[in-house]
């Protein structure tokens, strides 16, 4: 089957902070010269699309803002689709994605990564809304994350606490949820069976995409650690040294899937 779309992870796959992964810009141009559709998909809880886009442009990528699909975009789409007025525990930067969304008289709770919002008062307000039947939407459920002063407790812990106190189950919108990949593809009008995901996270990128019906290519850059491909089920469709090698592999195979 012909490949209709390629979903590409950002951090660890085509760049790390402000450094381009060698060959990524050329490889992306090569892929663009074919007729496949492209979308950049990433889990972010604190950076808006604009900030991500600015960074990528600054380091030399030619990317359109609308080509970026983040867990925040997925959350925004869900909010719009269900006409939710969420009480939001998210950072100021992430609020950019929710311009025009009313939080008056909230009927949902949205949790991102926002240390400044995870205090007792905000959490208690969230709990009361959930007990009244509001749905709990989590951008993602990371246990912890890395910051400059070391590991820090992640949003997943707070989401889990709220689930326990109220007996509800959070809807997670980011990777590795199948709905995340499906929503990203919906915009492109390509079905999961005609799409490939390229990323450095064996679990969230590759395994998540494959569970959603896409093919998954793991790259050995970013957070990749030797043997990651053997630790996941299903195993990746292909393992490439880097993004550039992954693109070559697709092109060598005539952009079609076995």
């Amino acid at each position, binding site marked *: 089957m012909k490949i209709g779309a390629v979903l590409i992870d950002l951090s660890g796959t085509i760049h790390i902070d402000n450094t381009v992964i060698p060959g990524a810009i050329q490889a992306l141009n090569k892929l663009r010269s074919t007729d496949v559709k492209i979308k950049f998909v990433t889990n972010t809880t604190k950076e808006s699309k604009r900030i991500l886009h600015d960074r990528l442009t600054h380091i030399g990528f030619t990317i359109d803002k609308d080509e970026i699909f983040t867990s925040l975009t997925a959350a925004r789409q869900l909010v719009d689709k269900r006409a939710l007025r969420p009480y939001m525990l998210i950072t100021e930067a992430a609020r950019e994605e929710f311009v025009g969304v009313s939080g008056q008289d909230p009927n949902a709770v949205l949790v991102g990564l926002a240390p400044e919002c995870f205090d007792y008062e905000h959490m208690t307000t969230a709990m009361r809304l959930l007990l009244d039947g509001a749905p709990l939407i989590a951008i993602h459920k990371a246990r912890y994350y890395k910051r400059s002063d070391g590991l820090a407790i992640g949003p997943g812990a707070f989401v889990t606490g709220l689930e326990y*106190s109220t007996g509800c189950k959070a809807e997670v919108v980011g990777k590795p949820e199948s709905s995340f990949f499906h929503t990203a593809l919906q915009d492109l009008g390509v079905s999961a069976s005609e799409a490939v995901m390229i990323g450095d996270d064996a679990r969230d990128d590759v395994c998540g995409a494959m569970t959603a019906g896409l093919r998954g290519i793991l790259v050995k850059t970013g957070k990749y650690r030797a043997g990651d491909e053997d630790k996941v089920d299903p195993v990746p469709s292909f393992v490439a040294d880097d993004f550039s090698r992954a693109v070559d592999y697709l092109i060598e195979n005539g952009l079609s899937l076995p």
Partner: protein
Amino acid sequence: MGEWLRSPIRGVLLDITGVLYESSADHGTVIPGSVKAVNRLRESGMPFRLVTNETTTPTTVLLDKLRRFGYQLEERELFSPIPAVVKLLQQEQLVPHLLVHPKVEGELRVGEKGSPASCVVLGDAEDNFSYANLNSAFRALMVMPCPRLITLGYGRYYKHNQQLQLDVGVYAKALEFACGVESEVVGKPSPAFFNQALADMGVQAEEAVMVGDDISSDVEGAQKCGMRGVLVRTGKFTSSLLPHPTITPDCVVDNLAEAVDQILAAKGKN
């Protein structure tokens, strides 16, 4: 006589907050009929003990408060997680990293000053449950060779100032999830905690009833321990709780007075 009273009751355990009084920002308000109910238990010779997960005030302060409401109680009749955890810390020579209410920190600070923490002790810290404090507890657990998370109770929420607010169990769950550890509960619904109060009365679990406003910590906890569990419609009770998918209280009553009425009426007949 209700079905639940067919086999005799020889001892009663009472929850405090939401059963004896309603909690609020000032001193709280006594629940009508509860003082008289406790007096009637005593006059009838029915053994009883108070079992609480209250960890925002020292035990002596809580007793003073109850006495001001008119309850006649002895300190030895009250079982709270604070003395229980202090005993545990001393027995096992643990040095705690504390995430508790400032008012009880003093009582819980045991072990040698300056030595690295060997466990995290979590109490109802209220406003002290900030991201920064939770993050330091998280980091303390992550560097322990054998991380131990001890939580004083495992409650979901309780009623304060006529509104529900988060209880310690929420933060215990959060740390469990982040660190991949399981917490040890001191307080309700730990069977060891209930058994301590039962042993003090010299009563078997099968002969005892627990009366509380928390369907999990009080009712389910008691039932899992072999006691009967009675739910009151005061405190944090909301009608949406029932029917509960997994927990069936032995009896649901309007308040403590009604529970004591039934228990004492059955006592006369047994």
